[in-house]
């Protein structure tokens, strides 16, 4: 049975498609496994039946928008996605008049890797009375635990309710950054050497990033050159430090990079650092 938000979302998507104000509606469909969803663009009112909204709707839809450039898009956004969309608008990557945003109040999303073991599904993880996921802090994504902003900053209409103001929690990542910064340079270097030595340069972090929008990446120019296809620490270091540099003014901290990293490198430390530097200036 669909939750109320899900029903409302489908109805609104259907209405928008039927009245022709959007050509497609971008949301999520059920993925191939439980607790996994995939971005999905509904193009007709019958396809809206496949849209879902549950505690597993984590992927950032902002990264998918460029595929539909030039079309009128309806999209369901949570707070994190809306922040990325705002940045994309700021860098003239998408047009506001081509976008119809249904904001969805978000009380945190599930970290599928932490609850997969308990064999739960998305329906039992959703409380229909309060329209929010029934998740403890240990089952939420790290970024959701310390999040205090359930309502997106950008929407044309809003679904969902803000039940109670989220409690103030300490951001543990910030403590990690302070700890890193308190180290001297060689110790910090050793820390990153250890973490980055796991990197296989699969570029998943880049592919998942909604704000890596250059058509031709300055760092990929050499990937087509067999003489430059080294996979040593030097290449890894260059890749990560340059990725961070290119994101300094863009990153919104959606932490998609860390979520998709197959080697679990703590990339959110880097994005948090960028955010912190921005605030200090």
């Amino acid at each position: 049975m669909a939750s109320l938000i899900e029903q409302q979302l489908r109805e609104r998507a259907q209405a928008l498609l039927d009245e022709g104000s959007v050509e497609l509606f971008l949301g999520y469909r059920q993925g191939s496994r439980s607790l996994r969803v995939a971005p999905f663009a509904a193009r007709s009112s019958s396809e809206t039946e496949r849209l879902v909204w549950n505690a597993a709707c984590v992927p950032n839809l902002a990264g998918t928008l460029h595929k539909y450039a030039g079309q009128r898009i309806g999209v369901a956004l949570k707070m994190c996605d809306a922040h990325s969309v705002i940045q994309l608008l700021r860098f003239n990557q998408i047009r506001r008049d081509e976008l119809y945003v249904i904001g969805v109040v978000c009380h945190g999303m599930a970290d599928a890797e932490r609850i997969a073991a308990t064999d739960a599904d998305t329906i039992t993880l959703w409380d229909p009375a309060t329209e929010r996921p029934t998740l403890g802090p240990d089952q939420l994504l790290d970024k959701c635990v310390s999040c205090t902003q359930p309502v997106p900053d950008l929407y044309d209409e809003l679904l969902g309710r803000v039940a109670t103001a989220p409690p103030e929690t300490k951001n543990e990542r910030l403590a990690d950054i302070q700890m890193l910064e308190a180290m001297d340079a060689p110790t910090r270097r050793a820390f990153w050497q250890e973490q980055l030595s796991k990197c296989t340069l699969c570029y998943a972090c880049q592919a998942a990033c909604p704000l890596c929008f250059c058509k031709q990446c300055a760092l990929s120019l050499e990937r087509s050159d067999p003489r430059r296809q080294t996979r040593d620490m030097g290449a890894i270091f260059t890749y990560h430090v340059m990725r961070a540099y290119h994101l300094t003014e863009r990153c919104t901290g959606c932490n998609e990079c860390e979520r998709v990293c197959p080697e679990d490198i703590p990339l959110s430390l880097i994005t948090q650092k960028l955010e912190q530097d921005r605030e200090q200036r």
Partner: protein
Amino acid sequence: MSERFEPHILGLLCSWCAYSGADTAGVSRAQYPANIRIVRVMCSGRIDPLFVARAFEHGADGVLVAGCHPGDCHYISGNNFAQERFASFARLLDFFGIDQRRFRLDWVSGAEGARFATIVSEMTEELRALGPLNIKVTS
């Protein structure tokens, strides 16, 4: 006799001031260490932080970026861009554990040959004390 560590320094010098400054240093026979390898660029504002990252990747122990004094840029504001890029990139390098002394931005005018020699000597001494960077070595 133990062999002394000789750091490799990459110098990215702007064509109009710092490179002329290095030239002046040569013409006036100022002594400075031979550890620096110089690449002439048209303006310090042309330097992409990627150049710096690549330099470290390919074995440089330190990178010196030098351009015209603020207000003296041949292209009016190139060195201001360089300074902003330097500031944010240096912070990142520091966060990744590269000592801040390994990446230096300085201003050298065409007449300041002696100043260029001093900067290179200072930097070489600092890097000698810091030791090799060894970015490719996995712990």
